[in-house]
């Protein structure tokens, strides 16, 4: 029964989703949108599971003193700080006791973790955490320069959230993405080594396509550039596109086949049963 009910549910909703694609009626759309809302709700609950997993794995690494375990404190404090920024807004221009509160709250988190992972000195850590917790509560009660916002997404526009996102996160992402250029170069070097006939063909095709974009042939430009351009276009639009379309058709059929297998209960890998 534990396995049959999920299979029946998947079959039922899967079949509905297939027929919904062919039924444009408003009532069909209503059910579809209702189900999509459910996926959002499930996603939000699952996010809590994700955060718990991240916390537990990080604490475990700190506890067992795995290599580079100190960074896990950074992960947890970063997570907590960004969440805090996302739920708070300033009531005016002044910062008030905003940053002392932030530091105190992070210290509470760090000391609580220390208390849970350290066998000795647990009382000291808990005591210190209690002191900083009291400091946090006092600041929340008496400082009116900022406040919590749980009802709206107003916190996402708060100065500190935007500053951290725009000036720390985005440059880091850009750095990671820019690494791609170097990895493409190293991957291309490995791919274009003429080890056999196929690799040589690949090298020639790649050279033609690349040289098309760098037509510096000096006085020979009028003779070579049009040839390179035509050959490159042919390579991209005929053999390359044909292969891509073949893969796309295969992927499309594979998607339908897998979906049917899931709906019919033949494929149950998502339940841990193949």
């Amino acid at each position, binding site marked *: 029964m534990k396995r049959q009910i999920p299979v029946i549910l998947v079959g039922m909703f899967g079949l509905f989703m*297939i027929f919904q*694609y*062919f*039924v*444009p*009626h*408003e*009532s069909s*759309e209503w059910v579809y949108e209702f189900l999509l809302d459910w*996926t959002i709700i*499930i*996603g939000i609950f*699952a996010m*809590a*599971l*994700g*955060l718990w*997993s*991240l916390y*537990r*794995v990080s604490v*475990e690494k700190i506890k067992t003193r795995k*290599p*580079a375990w100190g960074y896990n404190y950074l992960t947890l404090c970063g997570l907590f700080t960004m969440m805090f920024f996302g739920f708070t807004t300033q009531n005016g221009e002044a910062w008030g006791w905003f940053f002392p509160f932030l530091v105190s709250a992070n210290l509470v988190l760090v000391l609580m973790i220390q208390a849970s992972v350290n066998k000795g000195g647990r009382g000291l850590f808990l005591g210190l955490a209690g002191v900083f917790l009291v400091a946090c509560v006092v600041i929340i009660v008496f400082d009116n320069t900022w406040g919590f916002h749980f009802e709206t997404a107003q916190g996402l526009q708060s100065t500190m959230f935007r500053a951290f996102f725009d000036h720390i*996160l985005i440059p*880091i*992402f850009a750095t*990671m*993405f820019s*690494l*791609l250029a170097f*990895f*493409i170069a*190293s*991957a*291309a070097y*490995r*791919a274009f080594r003429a080890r056999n006939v196929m690799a040589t063909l690949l090298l020639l095709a790649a050279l033609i396509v690349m040289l098309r974009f760098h037509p510096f042939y000096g006085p020979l430009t009028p003779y070579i550039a049009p040839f390179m351009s035509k050959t490159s276009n042919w390579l991209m639009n005929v053999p390359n596109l044909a292969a*891509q379309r073949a*893969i*796309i058709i*295969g*992927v499309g*059929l*594979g998607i*339908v*086949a*897998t*979906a*049917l*297998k899931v709906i*019919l209960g*033949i*494929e149950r*890998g*998502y*339940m*841990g*049963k*193949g």
Partner: protein
Amino acid sequence: MKLKLLVLCLLLSCFSVASAQEGTSPPEDTLLFDSTLLPAPVTNLVAFDTENDHGHAITLEWEISVDDGAGKQSVAMYEVFRWVPDLMTAIPSFRDTLDYLKLRTSSSWSEPEPGSRTDSIHSVFAKLDMAQLEQKKETLERTIGQAIRDLPAAHAAYPENGSWQQVAVAPSGSVTAEDVGTKEKDSPDYLPDYSDFYYRVNAVTADPDIRTPSEIFGPVQSYGQWFNLGRLAVFVFVMIFGFLTIFFVSHARRGADLYVRPLAGIEAVDDAIGRATEMGRPILYVMGLGTADQIATIASFTILGRVAKRVAEYQTKLMVPAYESVVMAVAQEVVKTAYYDAGRPDDYKEDIVFFVTSLQFAYVAAVNGLMLRELPATNVYMGKFFAESLLLAETGAVAGSIQIAGTDEIAQIPFFIVACDYTLIGEELYAASAYLGREPILLGSLKAQDWAKAAVIILVLAGLILANLGVGNDWAWANNIVDFFRVVD
């Protein structure tokens, strides 16, 4: 001499001015046609419910004015008008008032800017207390609900208590236009179904005040369809494919011997796990950035189950960093079941599958760090991958891991082919679970896929021939067949 030159220059300049004036003379057309002459109206106007939709839309067709591109050539565009009852026009102002009342009774109320729309409404209700405002709000909500219910009756009262409103514009030469509304009752573009609509089309000249209305067409009603005929070909194909899948699966169940081509990437999985066991290093399984509802991720769950079972048997360490929390929850269940099936439930730990982050490059940083710290013997990438594919695979190559990848993202396949030892291309990812398990039922579905592929090849060739012959010879039947396979959204 100087005087002669001066006269010559003056003559030349006069000649050049005269020739320039000749060159800028208006074209013949503008001399012959006045673009503001009253044009003839459009004729044979018809309106009907837009096909294959959810309702709330009307399509109009007409024959162009005789002065559109011919005759007086004075038509600049067509304006489509619908008769709208006053009740429908009043609803948006009711809503503005309701929005004001909601804001006024909420905690985020602040005084409106002087002269704004909210300020003008505020001047009417400024003196009311909170209880009165709440009462007004409830009354207005009921009024709006009733007004929406009364819209069909208000439309049926044509031509009493209403006016013509422009709903669409079409350039000259157009013979069709669509009046598309929305199903959202609280939207200003709401178009009620099963209401009598009346339309007319104005032929408008370059001077917008000079226009000729057509005859009025109506009543016409919009309503939703129960089947999108534009997707009939897809429906037929899905039915045939579904039948093929069921047929081959039942064929396989009866014990038929089905041959499937071996896949090097899949056959390498066992060797890779064995290598990791011998080296005493972990196996890293990356499921990509896909969500749990994507087929590539579902296929990845199945492969993960097989890999986890083998890992549990060999007592090797497995690491599965997850990008999405739903994927993490499902993957945990998959791995747990695999460990139970392998008879090693004690070896299962919840931290085998762990959540990292839902940000693409932060995820890459975390996984790359994991690769360089833990130095896994084998990296398996199965699922949906985007720009991070090469970042992960190259780092894995640097760490000296055996790498097996599979994705259905066409743009990422070349990166994996270059950086990984084995790559499953496109649909091979979906087929991998059948290859790994060698279960006849799953192999049966692969056979159905092969037959469907053969059918697609035949249809592509037939379509190619029919499309070319049909166009060349104007064969209606050939074009009809081609049109049948054309999917209309």
